[in-house]
C-alpha cells in the first residue's frame, strides 16, 4: 500500500465522519462532505472513508460510481456546467458546448491543460426560464448565445 498517496482530511471532516458513523445510512452524506472539501473523491479518499467508517472499499466505490454527482477526477479551478435539460437542449445547449470546445479545446468531462477550466454537461439547473443556461464556478449565465461564450470565459481566465 506504500505507493498510494496519503490524503489528509481536515479535523472538521474527521469529526463529521465520527459523528455520522453511528447513524444509519450515513455513507452518501459522508461522501458529500468529502467531495465538498476535496472537490472530488479520489481513490485514496475512498480508502480513508472505508477505514474511518469501517466499511469495505468495494461498497464505497460501488456507491461513488453509481451517482453522477460524485466526481472521480479533480475538477478545474473553474468548473463550467452547461445545462442539457430539455428546455436548454431545445434552445441550443449543445451549441454552447461545441463553442466551449472550440474556444478552450475542452470536451465534456475533461480539464484544460492549465487546470483552469473543466467542463460538465448537467441536467437541469432549474432555471428553465433562462434557457439555455451555463454556470461557471457557480455563477449562472442565462439566455446564453454562442457569441457570448468567449466573453464569459474571459472573465475567469
Amino acid at each position, binding site marked *: 500500500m506504500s505507493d498510494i498517496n496519503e490524503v489528509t482530511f481536515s479535523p472538521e471532516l474527521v469529526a463529521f465522519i465520527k459523528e455520522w458513523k453511528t447513524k*444509519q*445510512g*450515513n*455513507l*452518501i*452524506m459522508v*461522501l*458529500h462532505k468529502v467531495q465538498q472539501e476535496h472537490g472530488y473523491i479520489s481513490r485514496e479518499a475512498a480508502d480513508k472513508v472505508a477505514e474511518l467508517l469501517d466499511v469495505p472499499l468495494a461498497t464505497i466505490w*460501488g*456507491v461513488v460510481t*453509481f*451517482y*453522477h*454527482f*460524485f466526481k472521480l477526477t479533480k475538477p478545474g479551478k473553474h468548473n463550467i456546467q452547461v445545462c*442539457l*435539460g*430539455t*428546455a436548454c*437542449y*431545445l*434552445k441550443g445547449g449543445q451549441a454552447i458546448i461545441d463553442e466551449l470546445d472550440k474556444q478552450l479545446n475542452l470536451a465534456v468531462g475533461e480539464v484544460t491543460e492549465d487546470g483552469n477550466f473543466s467542463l460538465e454537461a*448537467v*441536467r*437541469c*439547473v*432549474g*432555471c*428553465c*426560464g*433562462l*434557457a439555455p*443556461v451555463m454556470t461557471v464556478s457557480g455563477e*449562472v449565465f*442565462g439566455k446564453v448565445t454562442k457569441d457570448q461564450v468567449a466573453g464569459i470565459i474571459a472573465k475567469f481566465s
Partner: protein
Amino acid sequence: MAFRNYILVCGGTACESSHADQIYQNLLEECKAQGVADEVQIVKTGCFGFCEQGPIVKILPEDSFYVKVKPEDAKELISEHILKGREVTRLLYDKESSRKNARVEDIKFYQKQFRIVLRNCGFIDPENIDEYIAREGYQGLEKALFEMTSEDIIEELKTAGLRGRGGAGFPTWMKWNFSRQVEDDVKYVVCNADEGDPGAYMDRSTLEGDPHSVLEAMTICGKTIGATKGFIYIRAEYPLAIHRLEIAMQQAREYGLLGENILGSGFDFDIEIRLGAGAFVCGEETALLQSIEGKRGMPQPRPPFPAVKGLWGRPTVINNVETWANIPVIMTKGGNWFSKIGTHDSSGTKVFALTGKIRNSGLVEVPMGTTLREIVYDIGGGIANNKKFKAVQTGGPSGGVITEAELDTPIDFGSLVRIGSMMGSGGMIVMDEDDCIVDVAKFYLNFTVDESCGKCAPCRIGGRSLTNILEKITSGNGTLQDLDTLETIGEAMRKGSLCALGQTAPNPVLSTIKHFKDEYIAHIVDKTCPSGTCKKLVRYSINPEKCIGCTACARKCPVAAISGERKQVHIIDQSLCIKCGVCMETCKFGAVEIH
C-alpha cells in the same frame, strides 16, 4: 408596527441567478439612504412563477408588478414609487397600458391560475416562520393533534380525493392507511424531493418558497400513521432549497412545532435531510429508499410496497413535495372544499413547469381539467418568435407528445394517459416547427439509457438497442423495418422492466412514432430531416437568386468548401461540407438554404 409599503423581491433560483439578491440589498440600502427604512418592509419571497420576466419585484399595497429589474433600478424604485408615489412605468410588466395592466390580476399569465400548492410562494418570506403562521400555517397540524383521530384524518384525505403528484397518481389516503394499519413500533415518513426530470422545477420552487408547508404535512402524517421520524430526500443540486429547509426546521423546533412533545401534545416527530447525488432513478420510491439507506439506488421489486415494508424494512409513507404541500390546506379548508376543485377523477390543482419554445416560461398552477390550449396560449402566451406550434411534451422522459389535435383535452391523470402521454411530475415542454421529433425522442432515450441502473435486462439492453436504432435513423441509414423493431422492443421494455423508469422509457419513442410517423419516414425514406436538426441528413446550398457574392460565407467556412468570385454566385462543394452551419449563420441575405 404597520408599514406604508411592502416590497416583495423574488428569491427563487432563476431570479437569484439574475442578481435578485443584489436588488434586495440595494433596496435596503436605498431605503436607509432616502430615510424611509422605517416605513417600508422589504421581503425576499419564494418564486413568483413568472420566470421569463425575472427578476420580479412587487410593491404593495399598489400591487405594482415590476419585471426584469436590475440592481441599479433600486434607487429609482424608492425615490419614485415609495417617496413620490409614482410608478416606475418603464419597469412595469405592460408598459403601453401602464396602470391598467400593471396589476397582478390583470396579467394574463396569472388569470387562469389557481394557487393551492404555491399559495405562499411570492407572498411570504420563506425564512420567517411567523409569516407562514400568519397565513394559517400549522393550523392543520393543531387540528390533527388535538381535534382529529388518525381515522378522521385519513377520511378527510379520502373525501378530498388527493392523488400523488409525483407522477403515478396513487390515492394518498390509501398509502397512509396501509402504513397506519401495519403494527410496528418504528415507522417512517419520507418526502421525495429528488426532482430529476429535466425541465421541471416545481418541487424546488415549492421548497424554496414555502418550506414549512412540507414540514407541517409530514408531521401530520407522522401523527396519523404513528411515526416519529421523517426524512426529506432532496437533490444536492438544490442548495437554496436545502438552506431554506434547514432554517425552517430550526425555527419549527424553536416554536415547539417539530421535535419532542409538539405543542404539548405528547407527540414526538423530527425530520432529517438526506441528500441525493444525481441519480434520476432515485425518484422511484424503492430506489430512493435504498439511497437514504446509503446504498446504490437500485429499485426493488414490489410488493412489498414501501407503505408496508419500506425504509430499513419498516412501514414508510413516501409522498412527493407537491402532494405534501396540498395537505395543510386540506386540513384547514376541508376535504370537501378540495374535492370541488378540478375534475371528478383528479381533484385539486397541478403545478407545471412550462418551458421550451413558449413566450412566457414559468411555473403555473391550474385546476385539474384546464385544457392544454389554455395553458399554452392563455397562460403561456403562445409560441415564442411567431413560430408554429408543433407539440407539447409532458411527463418528461417517461411521457409522450401531445399534438395540436389534442390541445383541447382537459388535463387530468386519466385523460393524459388516454392520449398517450402521462401527467408525470409536471414538466411541460413546448416544441415548435424547428424541433425535430426524432431528435427529441433520441434526447429522452439517451437520458434514460444514461440513468438506467442496469439491474434488469429489458431496461438495460432494450434502452440501448432503441438508441442505436434512432442513431441509425438520424444518420440516414434507417429502414422501414426499424420502425417495427422500435415498437417491438418498446413493448417488451414496457412489460418486462422492473421499475417505472424502464417501463416508461420507450414512451417518448412510441408516442412520437404514433403522432409523427411522417417525420420518421422522411428520415428513413427521403433521408431528410424536415426541421434541419439532424446534421447528418442536412444539405446546405446557396440560392443563386439571393446570393450577391459578398464572399462572407466563403471566408467563414472552416473547410473551404465554398467557392465563387466576388459579386458572383457562390457554390458549396457537398463532398467537402461538414455541415457546421456557419455559412447559414453568416449570410445576411438568407441565401444559404437547408434541405
